[in-house]
């Protein structure tokens, strides 16, 4: 037992699979136990399509609200955005852009990682 830091990455686009919302449910879930684990939530690969302005968040709002209230930011990898022709102006206001090298740091400091 003990508090762990968990990195949760989203590699799948927010369409075609349920991962975009079930991964967030898992993120909320892992922070809910008595150990009070902490999380980083990072979008990369096709997962960054979730970070666009105007994406339907109906299924995810309650999880995003819980994570936001706990002080967690949604992070998107800059290289993944660039590769898909997505600029920072295209992103929703609650998205923080990080570099791939920063993602590597997050992987290094995480006790566990989960990919959705």
């Amino acid at each position, binding site marked *: 037992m003990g508090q762990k830091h968990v990195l949760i990455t989203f590699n799948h686009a927010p369409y075609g699979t349920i991962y975009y919302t079930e991964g967030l*449910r*898992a993120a*909320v879930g892992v922070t809910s136990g008595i150990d009070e684990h902490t999380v980083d939530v990072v979008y990369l690969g096709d997962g960054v399509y979730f970070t666009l302005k105007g994406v339907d968040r109906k299924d995810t709002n309650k999880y995003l609200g819980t994570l936001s209230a706990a002080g967690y930011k949604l992070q998107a990898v800059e290289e993944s955005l660039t590769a898909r022709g997505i600029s920072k102006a295209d992103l929703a206001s609650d998205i923080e852009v990080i570099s791939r090298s920063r993602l590597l740091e997050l992987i290094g400091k995480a006790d566990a990682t989960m990919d959705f």
Partner: protein
Amino acid sequence: MAQIGILLTMGPFQFENWETAVNIAEAALDKGHQVRIFHYLDGILNPNKNQTFPDLDEMPKDRFAKLVAKGVRPIACGVCVKARGQKGEDYIEGVTVGGLPDFAEIIGEVDKLITL
């Protein structure tokens, strides 16, 4: 001795993730490690005791039953179970229906987490 955690999200029959999970679990057990398994999303369908498929000599449920016989106590996500029309009695002996707080507990206890 280490504790290995496995988060299994993929279902039986269409993907090999469950088989990889079982193979890793068996290898870890053989080396004296402990294994914790959390079935999430379609992963909850793997230890369903009602599986039948004439093309396979051994069902996924049978491989999981062997892990149970070696002391593994898999937990299935209750929300996922209900979403898929499953019930507790649909599972092989030794598998319990729980929730994400159980997964949070697993994260707190394991040395390594594998997502499949």
